[in-house]
């Protein structure tokens, strides 16, 4: 028991036999998934559309609740998390969405500042922090632009800046490159790697085999709601079976 508890504290993400069923007639979106992620890891989750990647992320951000199984993220046991504390959980997790989800009526600076405003950070601190974070994503000179004036890659970097401005322990990026051309996609990935180097656990879902293969990170493949493979330093090909790679552990 003692070692279990020790493990929970050390782990960033722990999923224990998590099942999510939206509709009993359609089977489970996720079927008894168990998964550990350690602090500062960079994990890529791959799988075809409908495999269950998005459901997995929604469970982590507590947008959905599992039908059964246990989820513990950053030491927070979701079973014991009352609804009123969900906002507190989400403040500890940075999330980047495929469709950016920026506020269209606010400038780049304001979009990033927004994440700090809602947690009650003073304007002075915001004026201090936001430019530094915009610098990390290479958008310092575009602080006063509106989102519609930016390219897709730039918008996604704004979203990343917003996700990391509160210095979360975990950054969840749901197909952040899904809407981007290769050049911009690489800009975004470069930013994610930089953030990971600073010590943030990154969980990235993607379709892009090129990115997966060049990153050479831990790759978790999900197939029909189950973990098909979980390998360190792996590559991935959507068409063909995952090639042999060093098996984790």
């Amino acid at each position: 028991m003692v070692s279990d508890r020790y493990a929970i504290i050390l782990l960033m993400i722990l999923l224990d036999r998590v099942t999510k069923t939206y509709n009993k007639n359609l089977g489970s979106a996720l079927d008894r998934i168990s998964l550990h992620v350690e602090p500062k890891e960079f994990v890529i989750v791959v799988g075809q559309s409908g495999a269950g990647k998005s459901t997995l992320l929604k469970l982590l951000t507590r947008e959905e609740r599992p039908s059964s199984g246990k989820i513990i993220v950053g030491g927070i046991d979701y079973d014991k998390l009352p609804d009123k504390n969900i906002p507190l959980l989400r403040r500890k997790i940075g999330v980047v969405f495929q469709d950016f989800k920026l506020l269209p009526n606010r400038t780049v600076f304001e979009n990033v500042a927004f994440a700090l405003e809602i947690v009650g950070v003073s304007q002075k601190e915001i004026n201090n922090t936001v430019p530094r974070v915009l610098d990390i994503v290479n958008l310092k000179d575009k602080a006063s632009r509106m989102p519609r004036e930016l390219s897709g890659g730039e918008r996604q970097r704004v979203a990343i800046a917003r996700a990391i401005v509160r210095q979360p322990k975990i950054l969840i990026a749901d197909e952040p490159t899904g809407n981007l051309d290769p050049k911009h996609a690489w800009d975004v990935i470069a930013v994610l790697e930089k953030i990971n180097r600073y010590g943030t656990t990154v969980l990235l879902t993607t379709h892009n085999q090129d990115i997966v293969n060049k990153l050479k990170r831990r790759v978790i493949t999900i197939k029909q709601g189950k973990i098909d493979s979980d390998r360190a330093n792996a590559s991935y090909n959507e068409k063909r079976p995952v090639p042999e790679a060093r098996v984790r552990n």
Partner: protein
Amino acid sequence: MGRRTTTFGRIVRTGMLNFVRNAWLAVAAMAIMIITLTIILFSLIVNATFRNTVDQITDKINISIYLKDTVSEAQAKTFVDDLRALPSVEKVSYLDKAAALRAYMKQNVGNESLLKAINETDNPLPATIQVKPRDLNQLGQIRSFIEKPDNKKLQSDPASDNGDRREAIDKITHATNIMRRAGVVAVAVFATISVLIIFNTIQMAIFNRRDELQIMRLLGASTWYIRGPFVIEAIIYGILSAIISILLINALFITASNSLQATSLGILDISYSQQYFRNHFWWLLVIQLALGILIGAASSIIATRRYLKFKTPKK
């Protein structure tokens, strides 16, 4: 500045900004709120005026009992004490013959010939007991007590009670009651409509900004951080509506006193209403503000509730 103050400041600022941005929606919500508050204010004033009219008339009602000269002080005192013991009696005063005379002369100061005539005779006035009833509807109880044979035989003349006003009083009481009831119904109906319309307005505002709300939720904004601006917005409707409605009533009184020469309209004593309004202006404003804020806050809290729920576990 602490985090709470910062956050509260942001909520208020966003609410005010939204109010300005949703100006047209605000007009609709406020129009109905103004009507509601004006009706409430109007019924408050009319009610107070009627109560005053009834009180004034009641105050003038007074039963005078005239005692025979043969009645001893002791007998008179027992009678007075018995009257005082009646629950329907508010006040009893006893004037002996001399006091009755003094009171009579005081009433007729300036009427030299009358005073002279009285001075030339023996005191012609009987000792008098004056009874003030607590309530108009209890005159009967006092009257039947006076008419009891034991009491009757002490009296020189039949007791007089300016009871001819009785009919007028009944009419006013009846009218007042009807007006009060109508007022309550009108207030209830308009308050309900007002809540529904404000509710709808805020739902529209939320619908326009549902993406923003969803993003706020995903970024970990607390329920009150999201809801607060909507509540502030609705409270602004309430405050402005309260002020406008009290100014409307004020304008109404100015017009009324300028165009109507009479001081009353039917049984409504307008000059008193006006006086009441002036004297209680701040108090009425406070009531209006409280009601406006309450209606605004309640409807916005209900309107936002549905959008702020978290997913409940599906088992």
